[in-house]
């Protein structure tokens, strides 16, 4: 398996031109300090460049948003190339959703249990630790960006704490010449009757509980949806002692063979899938293809589920009787939705990916079409942690290059090859695991679509069919799906599918729903005082 590896920390040419942020500042004389930071005692020395940056008004060379596989890689790579980096993340500790792990404050000798690519993470974490110690990276944990704006060619990130009822600690504003957006994504949800009952979780939510708290969400479970992510979730549940009655895959995995180019491009992924398949066999978990969980039963909480056989289009087969199973946990995995808020807020161009997700358009170097804004990870197209880490590293190197640090072209090209290969694989997986075309036929008018505003499928159908709502935005305005606390993060995809009436989603279906000027909620009090003492 040849994937982008964390490379040795680069040693930049001492004669390198100044970084972008210094072009207006005092002339040259700048010396890249002897990075990497972990080399002997040099790491703790305060270097003159750092002090100059402070004097120039605390503008970082780059702010990286997100400390998952992509963001961590980007931040570490850019900092090791001599750039001054701010790293902002909602979590208390790095790793993102993929490497979510128990509290590092407590001793967990087996903290990597159930993780994938854990060594990759610990290496990144070690490098980050050294860079933070050496003053190369400043990390802002438990912070979310609620607003981003560009003023005088400097990006301003307005931060709020992720802790409810705690005042946001200073600084509430981080300024940087460049931005790397690595906000990751979250589980895509697809309503079926009963999906709003307690006991129904996203596959990612089940996984997060297992990884961060070693906690099992139920005793008897069905894992349903589509895509390879169902397997590790089922395996994790079974290994933790839950009885997994079935993994229901809505598509047929023989579909993998239909895109041979993509499927063979990352042989390691195939092996991973085989390992999971083996583990499921050991736990006696049946894997059912072309089967969907079409209805969740229960009063007050989940007590059962209906499993239905599907035809190629995703319609429930009338010739096969549905099966009713008794469960207390349903884990749905329908793929992921990238977090597009920041991409949209900076005005970067978006596109619809193979899996019908709205994603950021990037060039082969991870640049968006907005100057000095880069994107890496799921936000450029859902493709998993290895791809995300490769994109992050590529973004970090490109960034260094664009800031005037010489970077070996061969290193960039090698990363680009890896990214392309994983991207092809991801595309093949997406093509093999689409949301079933006839999914909407499993629904009733009473099926809840938007839980925040309690909008049913029938209410959206009515504004579409009777009031003439011709697109998702109009349906949202008239029936209120996506107008509540989650701002359509949960129901946006389903609303777009319902108003598109079976056709493939386009940018115009998704982009208006992804526009959220406040990229995270902020209190009126914080908004009223933002930037005080700044301007």
């Amino acid at each position, binding site marked *: 398996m040849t994937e982008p590896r964390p490379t040795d920390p680069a040693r930049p040419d001492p004669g390198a031109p100044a970084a972008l942020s210094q072009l207006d500042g005092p002339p040259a004389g700048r010396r890249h300090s002897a990075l990497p930071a972990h080399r002997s005692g040099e790491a703790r020395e305060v270097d003159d460049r750092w002090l100059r940056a402070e004097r120039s008004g605390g503008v970082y060379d780059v702010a990286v948003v997100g400390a998952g596989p992509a963001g961590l890689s980007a931040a570490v790579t850019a900092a090791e190339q001599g750039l001054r980096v701010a790293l902002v993340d909602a979590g208390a500790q790095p790793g993102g959703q993929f490497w979510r792990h128990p509290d590092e404050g407590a001793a967990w000798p087996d903290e990597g249990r159930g993780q994938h690519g854990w060594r990759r993470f610990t290496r990144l974490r070690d490098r980050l630790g050294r860079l933070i110690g050496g003053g190369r990276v400043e990390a802002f944990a438990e912070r979310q960006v609620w*607003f981003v*704006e560009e003023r005088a060619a400097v990006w301003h990130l*307005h931060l709020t704490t992720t802790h409810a*009822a705690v005042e946001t600690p200073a600084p509430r504003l981080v300024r940087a010449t460049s931005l790397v957006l690595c906000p990751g994504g979250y589980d895509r949800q697809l309503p079926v009757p009963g999906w709003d009952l307690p006991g129904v979780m996203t596959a990612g939510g089940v996984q997060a509980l297992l990884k961060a708290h070693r906690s099992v969400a139920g005793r008897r479970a069905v894992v349903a949806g589509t895509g390879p992510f169902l397997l590790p979730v089922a395996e994790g549940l079974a290994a933790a002692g839950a009885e997994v009655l079935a993994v229901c895959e809505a598509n047929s995995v023989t579909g993998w063979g239909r895109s041979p180019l993509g499927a063979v491009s990352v042989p390691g992924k195939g092996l991973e899938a085989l390992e999971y398949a083996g583990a499921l066999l050991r736990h006696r978990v049946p894997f059912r293809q072309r089967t969907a969980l079409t209805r969740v039963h229960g009063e007050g909480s989940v007590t059962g589920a209906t499993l239905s056989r599907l035809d190629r289009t995703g319609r429930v087969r009338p010739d096969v009787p549905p099966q009713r199973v008794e469960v207390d946990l349903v884990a749905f995995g329908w793929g992921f939705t990238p977090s597009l808020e920041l991409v949209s*807020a900076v005005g970067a161009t978006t596109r619809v990916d193979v899996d019908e997700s709205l994603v950021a358009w990037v060039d082969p170097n991870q640049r968006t079409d907005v100057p000095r804004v880069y994107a890496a990870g799921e936000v450029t197209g859902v493709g998993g942690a290895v791809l995300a880490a490769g994109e992050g590293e590529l973004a970090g190197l490109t960034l260094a290059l664009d800031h005037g640090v010489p970077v070996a072209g061969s290193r960039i090209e090698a990363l680009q090859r890896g990214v392309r290969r994983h991207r092809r694989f991801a595309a093949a997986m997406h093509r093999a695991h689409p949301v079933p075309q006839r999914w909407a036929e499993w629904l009733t008018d009473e099926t809840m679509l938007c839980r925040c*505003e309690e909008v049913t499928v029938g209410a959206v159908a009515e*504004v579409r069919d*009777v*009031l*003439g*709502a*011709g*697109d998702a*935005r*109009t349906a949202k*305005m*008239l029936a*209120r799906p996506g*107008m*509540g*606390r989650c*701002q359509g993060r949960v129901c946006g995809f389903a609303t777009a599918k319902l108003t598109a009436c079976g056709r493939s989603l386009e940018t115009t279906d998704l982009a208006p729903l992804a526009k*959220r*000027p*406040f990229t995270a*909620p*902020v*209190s*009126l*009090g914080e*908004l*009223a*005082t*933002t*930037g005080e003492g700044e301007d």
Partner: protein
Amino acid sequence: MRRSADVVVIGAGAVGAAVAWFATRAGLTVQVLERGQIAGGTSSACEGNLLVSDKEAGPELDLALYSHDVWTGELDEYAGLWEFERKGGLVVAASSTGAEGLRALAVRQRAAGIEVTDVPADRIADYEPYLTDGLAAAAHYPQDCQAQPMLVTAHLLRMAREAGAGVSTGTTVTGLLRDGDRVVGVRTDRGDLTAGAVVNAAGTWAGEVAALAGVRVPVMPRRGFVLVTEPLPPTVFHKVYAGEYVASTQSSEEGLQTSTVIESTAAGTILVGSSRERVGFDRTVSLPALREIAAKALTLYPSLKDTSVMRSYLGFRPYCPDHLPVIGHDPRAPGLWHAAGHEGAGIGLSVGTGKLLAQALSGVAPDLELTPFAPERFGDQVLRETPA
């Protein structure tokens, strides 16, 4: 889509929808053309204020009171469809000078037929218990109402459609058909339509439609932002706004102006406005504007400090230099009618406008004199010749 109609309405916002409904009901055949989606412009980027309280005596107030009668009269049976609520307005003044201004305005408004109750400082809490202490005075306007503007638009269009009108979205008018001076139809990207009358209800974009006929209608955009909070238990019961709001609606300043308007919605969210800027159609979200709106709102409702803001939106009020709409026949281009430029009052004024215009289109003398809204009042300058 009809290929010929008595009336072609350009624009499916609240005003276009009201024109379509009243014209259809008057027995005319109507075709609505909309380049985007229904309520896609300012009608989906506003607050649904149906105010009389912010208006001085004059033609706009006459139209507001007339509209109020339409909303609460013949349209009352549909009130539930568009979340119509007679919640009343409460205008507050912080200083004694402000209080004097408020009382003086009330005297003038009473003379013009508005119901106003003076609220002394110690009675304000009876109306709005969460308002800040220490306000100097308030005035209660029971005629101020609220409606959900997208539902108003969608249901008026549905009603018009069910009564025989055509509504075509995704259809752009690219030119007007002429017979000599006369406008006799429209050219669209989906073919030509002939019409006895063409109504320009294009809101903030009405100037562009007028230009197709070679006439000038100086409707310009005035940008505004609104903040939307998380849903809350009942906290704000009226439309609450600061006395300075009245002055700012009538101002023509270019720079940022903010004045507080706060109201809750049927969904439990609180809408916090308002701002005014003349920046063209710039859609950049302005943090200084949002910050100022928030800061001013907190001076009235300090207890909202920890309330989350979920989103903001912006819209472009269609305004004319004299802050009056353009309603009626355009003698410079016979056959062309206008119903646009209602600035920040378009939802409230839509139904009065629609009813009056439908009367005029049917050859009936309108209930209200339309002369103050005459399209040619800004000068009959011809922009350019438009080929037939």
